[in-house]
């Protein structure tokens, strides 16, 4: 399964013009197979640019994107094959649906790959199952689906290509809490069953804490820090300075510490906080 690595990646918008912006400044990161990496950063920190580099939609000014150790731009004419191997779900992917039925739309990617009809059918069914799209919805026009269903159909459209690396830009943005949990849960389940490397861009620290194995923080085009959620969220002051946030429960832990109840600052989920708090309660304080 694919491991994706970026080395010294740099990119500048509007090179030479007075308004040039350094979107990426020698970023080094490894996305391992079987892990979910969360990418966080303020608006304009270069997350979306980085994401578009990963499957060759954009070409870096300097630096390399390595898929299993091979530079994806080694053969520029075969960049399409890279896009099948590194599946990208863009922001608000429901706006890319176009075909007459959800089924045909999901089959767009697999067909472009040149799969046989039987394989396409199988891939679509499997992807729809992973994305949680009921079979009865497959025959419907994608425009008749609800918002959450559309999002899942679009997700299925990328999963159907059976990518080795799955990249998702704000997969839960604009969804209600139920649909949010549903789609993120689906992604986690897909990652566990397929063993792919998954990269999620998100603004929600809670989601990141819940679903990611590794968190990478971007700030003004640079990689600011990377580590496990516990490591990253325990450095709350730096995150605040970068215009970011930590999960609510981490803030609660910080306040508790001020009150004299120390459960550590690396608490990032409610369950984890409970685990630390319960033994304290046992002492009868």
């Amino acid at each position, binding site marked *: 399964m694919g491991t994706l690595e970026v080395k010294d990646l740099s990119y500048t918008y509007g090179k030479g013009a007075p308004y040039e912006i350094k979107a990426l400044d020698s970023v080094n990161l490894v996305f391992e197979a079987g892990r979910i990496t969360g990418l966080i950063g303020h608006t304009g920190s270069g997350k979306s640019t980085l994401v578009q580099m990963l499957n060759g939609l954009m070409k870096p000014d300097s630096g390399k994107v390595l898929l299993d150790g091979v530079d994806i731009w080694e053969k520029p004419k075969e960049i399409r094959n890279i896009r*099948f191997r590194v599946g990208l779900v863009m922001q608000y992917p429901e706006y890319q649906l176009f075909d007459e039925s959800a089924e045909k739309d999901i089959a767009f990617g697999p067909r472009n790959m040149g799969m046989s009809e039987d394989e396409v059918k199988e891939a679509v069914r499997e992807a729809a199952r992973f994305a949680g799209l009921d079979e009865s919805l497959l025959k419907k026009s994608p425009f008749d689906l609800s918002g959450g269903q559309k999002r899942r159909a679009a997700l299925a459209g990328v999963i159907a290509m059976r990518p080795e690396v799955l990249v998702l830009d704000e997969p839960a943005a604009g969804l209600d809490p139920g649909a949010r949990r549903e789609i993120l849960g689906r992604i986690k389940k897909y990652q566990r069953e397929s063993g792919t490397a998954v990269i999620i861009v998100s603004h929600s620290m809670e989601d990141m804490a819940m679903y990611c194995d590794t968190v990478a923080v971007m700030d003004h085009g640079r990689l600011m820090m990377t580590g496990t959620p516990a490591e990253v969220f325990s450095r709350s002051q730096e995150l605040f300075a970068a215009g970011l946030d930590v999960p609510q429960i981490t803030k609660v832990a910080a306040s508790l510490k001020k009150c004299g109840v120390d459960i550590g600052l690396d608490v990032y989920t409610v369950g984890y906080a409970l685990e630390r708090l319960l033994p304290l309660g046992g002492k009868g304080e």
Partner: protein
Amino acid sequence: MKADIAFGQYCEGNSFLHRLDPRWKIIFTIFYIVTIFLAKNIFAFALLLLSAVLLALSSRIKPSILIRGMKPLLFIIAFTAIINIFWLKGERLLVDFWIIHIYLEGIINALLIVTRVLLLVVGTSVILSYTTTPIALTDGIERLLSPLAKIKLPVHEFSMMMTIALRFIPTLIEETDKIMSAQKARGADFSTGSIIKRAKALVPILVPLFVSAFRRAEELALAMECRCYTGGEGRTRMNVLHSSWRDALMAGLLCVLCAGVIVLNRLGFVYNLSM
């Protein structure tokens, strides 16, 4: 892609030309074009060239931007110049080689036509497109056409449509960009294959684009109604257009220029260099 599109060509600034009234600017542009077509000889063109240089200087727009704006016209300019040099017959033969006959008149004519095209481009773009925001422009057009409202032409609605269309061009370009990226991520291929295959490859872009354009139109209509928009009837404006001494000065200068061109045209007959 986003960075490559300098839409509407408007260049931010606060120069003399930027501060003219857009209504007058439209009239000035038309007047300037007429003046350019009145010019008949080298002297008149020299005066016009001088005026174009002064206009460009007074707009304080970087020469590099002006030159970049002329690049797309290079082909047309070269084409007309070549046609004139090789095909125009005159009295003073300069080159007579095999099937090539070049006359002095041809060269002069080519020069004048090239100058005329350049003047038209520089003049109109400096007076109008580089120094007027698209919104001010539609505003000016609306006001100039407002007498037509008397004969029941929907002038206000027309200009509102133009304003909205202009406003949404960058949005739609951005949208197209996004949709193209999304479909490319699913392996869409727009650049290879037969014409029919390429046309078919556009469907996955055009369908979502139309859907989103309609959605945007509906949302915009709703937002406008929420703010009680009912059309042009009795509507006042936030930026009331004012004519000032600048417009009067510019009008005066252009009249002098036009008179100068006419006088110099006569002078041309004396030297027998007319076209």
